[in-house]
């Protein structure tokens, strides 16, 4: 008993090299590194399997969904900045806008781009360009979907007053994840829509 008490005292006395939020942050960034390997592999397969060409997609829609996702990242940044300064109202408003833009991105890619591509004859079985297009956008859309779910949970917590200027790790984690998903699209958008000649159908 005396030993247990002594070791507890020792653990309390010696400061850890990193505080807990810093360790959380480092852990999340290590998760991003592992995710980056996954997306880098997908990106490498895109250029290895379809060198010099790209799927023949709707350029306007690609630009619109990209703008929507970038704008959502801005509102997520705004939400995090607001809560870190104790502004709950701006935090909640910005978070709702981020969620709506995220849903808009999903609607644009899965609800509009996929049917348009299918109508153009680009299907998962139509060839390498179709397989790559659905694999890349599908994998990314799944991450956006999980991000939207994460943000809805954070919004619910925010409404209940869980976060404050001093303690809002949940918001920071959701923001980091959302921006990471945005960074992935920064690579995927040119890879799918801009680099190479449009593949003939």
């Amino acid at each position, binding site marked *: 008993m005396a030993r247990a008490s002594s070791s507890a005292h020792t653990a309390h006395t010696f400061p850890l090299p990193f505080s807990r939020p810093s360790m959380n942050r480092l852990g999340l960034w290590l998760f991003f590194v592992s995710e980056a390997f996954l997306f880098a592999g997908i990106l490498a397969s895109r250029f290895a399997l379809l060198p010099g060409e790209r799927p023949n997609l709707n350029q306007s829609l690609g630009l619109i969904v990209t703008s929507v996702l970038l704008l959502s990242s801005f509102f997520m940044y705004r939400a995090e900045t607001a809560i*870190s300064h104790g502004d709950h109202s701006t935090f909640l408003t910005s978070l709702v806008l981020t969620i709506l833009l995220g849903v808009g991105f999903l609607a644009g890619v899965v609800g509009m781009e996929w049917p348009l591509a299918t109508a153009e004859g680009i299907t998962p079985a139509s060839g390498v360009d179709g397989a790559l297009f659905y694999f890349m956008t599908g994998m990314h859309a799944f991450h956006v979907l999980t991000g939207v779910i994460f943000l809805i949970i954070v919004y619910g917590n925010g409404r209940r007053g869980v976060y404050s200027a001093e303690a809002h790790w949940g918001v920071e984690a959701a923001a980091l994840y959302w921006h990471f998903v945005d960074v992935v699209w920064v690579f995927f958008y040119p890879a799918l829509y801009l680099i190479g000649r449009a593949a003939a159908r």
Partner: protein
Amino acid sequence: MTNEQGKARAMRTGWIVIVLLAVLTAIEYVISLMTGGNWLPLAVIILIKTGLIVQYFMHLPRVLSPEQQGGGH
């Protein structure tokens, strides 16, 4: 710096970054049309856009120097 000044400054940074990202995306689109999808200039823009998001939106310096302010517990 007061809390309000700090917030205003951070919000201004956010505006600058999103405007830069929008401009770079437009440039990316035009370059693709002009060059027929040449990857080299697009790769440069991709890296700049990634740098902006990682540095300002994802606060990479917070990971590298744990003393910086963050989200708390």
